[in-house]
């Protein structure tokens, strides 16, 4: 069997594969820095030590905050129930704008950091008003 223009074709294939795979071998071993969230906003520091706790555990919030917020939204808007009782029996007003962001007043260093890292674009802030960021 003879391949016409074999040389050109193979060089072309090699160049294509090299270019296509370049992001993989050029960035090999260079991990993008993990996003470090800042949870030491002035609002949180003002709270007494024992109240510096999120509505649920850190691990739960990290993994499930989107499901939690989704169920909050359904409960508040569609069910008309606005009070959330967490697993320790503490009650919170279910509101991203008035509860979550009252403590996490640093959207850029809290929400955006991870969301940018994970390339997800939740559309919370097209309607909900984000807290005014203090320039630090």
């Amino acid at each position, binding site marked *: 069997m003879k391949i016409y223009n074999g040389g050109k074709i193979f060089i072309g294939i090699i160049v294509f594969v090299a270019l296509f795979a370049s992001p993989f071998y050029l960035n090999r071993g260079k991990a993008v820095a993990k996003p470090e969230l800042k949870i030491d906003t002035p609002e949180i520091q003002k709270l007494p030590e024992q109240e510096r706790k999120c509505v649920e555990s850190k691990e739960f919030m990290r993994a499930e905050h989107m499901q939690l917020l989704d169920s909050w939204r359904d409960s508040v808007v*569609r069910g*008309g*129930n606005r*009070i959330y*009782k*967490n*697993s320790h029996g503490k009650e919170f007003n279910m509101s991203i*704008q008035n509860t979550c962001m009252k403590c996490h007043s640093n959207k850029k260093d809290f929400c955006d950091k991870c969301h940018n890292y994970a390339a997800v674009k939740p559309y919370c802030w097209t*309607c909900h*008003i984000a807290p005014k960021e203090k320039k630090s």
Partner: protein
Amino acid sequence: MPYSAKGEKVMSINRREFLKIAGLSAAAGIGSVAIFDRLQKNALEASEFSAGPDALNAKKWAMVVDVRKFKTPEDYKKCTDACHSAHNVPDFGNPKDEVKWIWTDTFDHTFPGQEHEYLSEDIKHKNFLLLCNHCENPPCVRVCPTKATFKRKDGIVMQDMHRCIGCRFCMAACPFGARSFNYRDPRGKDAKGQPFIKEENPEYPTRMIGVVEKCTFCTERLAVGKLPACVEVAPAGGLVFGDLADLKSEVRKILRTNYTIRRKSELGTGPAVFYVMGDSGYSVVPELL
């Protein structure tokens, strides 16, 4: 296991065995349902949703507008301003793009078909306060393809902005013009650089371009035991808010003792906003005699 006449095992069961197996599987089925129920209950016990302790509850919220109590256009403006600033309603400065939750209009626009040329000057020149009627049989809810607008158990016709796709069917369906579309970004600025929302209320969300909005009878205020924003700033007795299902409520008392009308009740949507008519010496009436 049953045997054939020759003494071989055969794959069939007699009635007795069948009933045993059927009984056992039924018991297992019922048991597992109970177990799953228990599991779900445990999950709910750990965290649960509830209405707040101060929440105002009703079977059927309604409002009475006593037009006699509104003496000047400023009385109306107080109500509309209070609502629009509390809910971040944008002012696009253009009637074509207007977004409104509560507004005023003339008698012939408010109660079409009721006007005639011999109406009292007061009624003829008066404006009337209009808002979503929170109908008993809301046509907007029936046409909404995403169930973004729905009727709550307490009669409030609610709008879920998360689900609204901006198709505007509800606007076509509503006979009262109570719904407004965000043709422009409410967070934007006009040609002079003035924001459409003069002063944002940080406690309440804005909307985004391409969704429909309307009055919600202030569900966010009812949830914490407050009356709607317009009721709070209206002249005493001008706006009364209460439960239609409660015989002793203020609303029912007024309906019992006054002649009240509703907007376009002939359409059968069952509006929950009632108007007490009467002259009030409205300040814009020209002196004729």
